[in-house]
């Protein structure tokens, strides 16, 4: 084959390549059935079970446990599509040589991460829609109509997805192989769901010390944020602090975004072996 000799064309822009990577990431994600089943459907599956087993109303508030589970599970669901999905996905990319191949091409690292952001954003939105669909169908959840609540939804969603994706990328470096990545990501994820008031409702039913531990991590704040979006304000009495604590939520999640970025920069590796 003959090389065509043309004058050097400009390199494709990192943004364009990032979007192209995003398309490829989405294709690969949704073609990988096991991945989709575990990471994507598990929160919906758990929601159906939990909400059906415990479906009492909270006092005379008119709110059922199924609705509370739905709101909390939206938080836990996007932690799955960001933290767990990134933690496993990047470990797999490192092991199967995706990262090494990319590093040998003119594609910049920033485009790889843009592609991951596209994947996380799309799969997280799909996760939210799936979980809200379950909540509306099975547990009579009704979506809020006030703009303010959707603004809260937006900032909680954005901060949650960014902080958890960064932490997922960072933890992928801790997983020595793609086999260990699911355990390394799911153990903290599962543990935090138990102590953050996702599986156990209301959160005040948990020992205070456990919630204090959970308060250092994102899951508690993300789920609480979504409860403030999808539950009536009367439900605030079921929170540990007796308030939605929006300021604290924003603060903790922003701090995790910064810490996550620092951890990523400090731990990111292109390959498993020493270079």
């Amino acid at each position, binding site marked *: 084959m003959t090389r065509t000799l043309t004058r050097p064309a400009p390199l494709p822009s990192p943004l364009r390549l990032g979007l192209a990577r995003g398309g490829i990431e989405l294709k*690969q994600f949704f073609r990988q059935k096991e991945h989709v089943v575990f990471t994507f459907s598990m929160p919906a599956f758990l929601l159906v079970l939990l909400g059906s087993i415990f479906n009492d109303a909270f006092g005379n508030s008119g709110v059922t446990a199924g609705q509370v589970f739905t709101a909390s599970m939206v938080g836990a669901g996007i932690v799955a599509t960001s933290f767990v999905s990134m933690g496993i996905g990047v470990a797999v990319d490192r092991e199967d040589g995706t990262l090494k191949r990319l590093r040998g091409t*003119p594609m910049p690292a920033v485009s790889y991460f843009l592609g991951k952001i596209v994947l996380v954003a799309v799969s997280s939105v799909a996760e939210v829609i799936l979980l809200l669909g379950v909540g509306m169908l099975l547990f009579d959840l009704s979506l809020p109509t006030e703009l303010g609540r959707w603004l809260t939804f937006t900032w909680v969603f954005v901060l949650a997805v960014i902080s958890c994706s960064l932490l997922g990328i960072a933890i992928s470096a801790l997983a020595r192989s793609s086999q260990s990545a699911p355990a390394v990501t799911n153990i903290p994820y599962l543990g935090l769901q138990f102590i953050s008031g996702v599986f156990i409702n209301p959160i005040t039913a948990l020992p205070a010390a456990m919630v204090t531990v959970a308060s250092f991590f994102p899951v508690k704040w993300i789920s609480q944020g979504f409860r403030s979006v999808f539950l009536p304000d009367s439900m605030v009495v079921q929170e540990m602090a007796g308030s939605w604590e929006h300021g604290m939520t924003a603060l903790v999640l922003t701090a995790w975004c910064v810490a996550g970025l620092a951890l990523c920069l400090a731990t990111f590796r292109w390959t498993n072996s020493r*270079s």
Partner: protein
Amino acid sequence: MTRACAWRSTLGGMNAIEARGLGKTYRDVHAVRDVDLTVRQGEIFALLGPNGAGKTTTVEILEGHRDRDSGDARVLGEDPGKAGRAWRSRLGIVLQTATDAAQLTVAETVRHVARYYPNPREVDDVLDACGLTEKAGSRVRQLSGGQRRRLDVALGIVGNPELIFLDEPTTGFDPEARRQFWVLIENLARGGTTILLTTHYLDEAEALAGRVAVIAHGEIVAEGPPATLGGRATAEATVGWTDENGRHTKHTATPTALINQLSAGGRELAELTVSRPTLEDIYLDLIGDRQ
């Protein structure tokens, strides 16, 4: 086209790869020691050596994938440890192992990687050249070992590189697939691409490469065109013949004179043979020296 030539001429006369004194140690393993390599533009150069000789370490240093502990390297005029995107757009890299993109189809993968480059080749041409046209719609995970390897080459050449690295490209191929692969490599070289390939197959180096460097235990032990490697062309010949006393063999630097003397008076020598060491003899000798 004039501009193309002007750009091309900036490389005129330069070597594609120049490495001096490359060294790399992993903990206590001296993987590569004092390696010098010069690969001229447009040639096929083979780095030949047994498993564990340091071939992958050497090429990955030149590709910018590994850091060297010592020495100097210039690949397409730049230091591979520091070069950026523009430099990588002029290279094609075929790694020793790759299992990525399992869920994508062959065509999707090649088309996607083509987008990374400023001047990619036509995807259909690349698939055709690599014998993958029929597999274009297949998922990558369903490919056989040989097809997967051809896909790796397709991904290595789709960016229209000036220089392509191939690390053990035909390991695990059947003889038929290997020959087809050689034709592909020769066609690439004929089209003006410089090729550095590693192999532990002697016949592959002999069939493809204009020049070969033999590496053993991290050191280059011989270098040159396959025909002259390790002094093959000038090595002593072995003359063999049979007479009434049985079979004789004699090593000599001047076989013609010996035969002339033996056949003096028009005597016919039965079963006369003149042989020189095969490349394999030389090769085994070279790598054996270090063992």
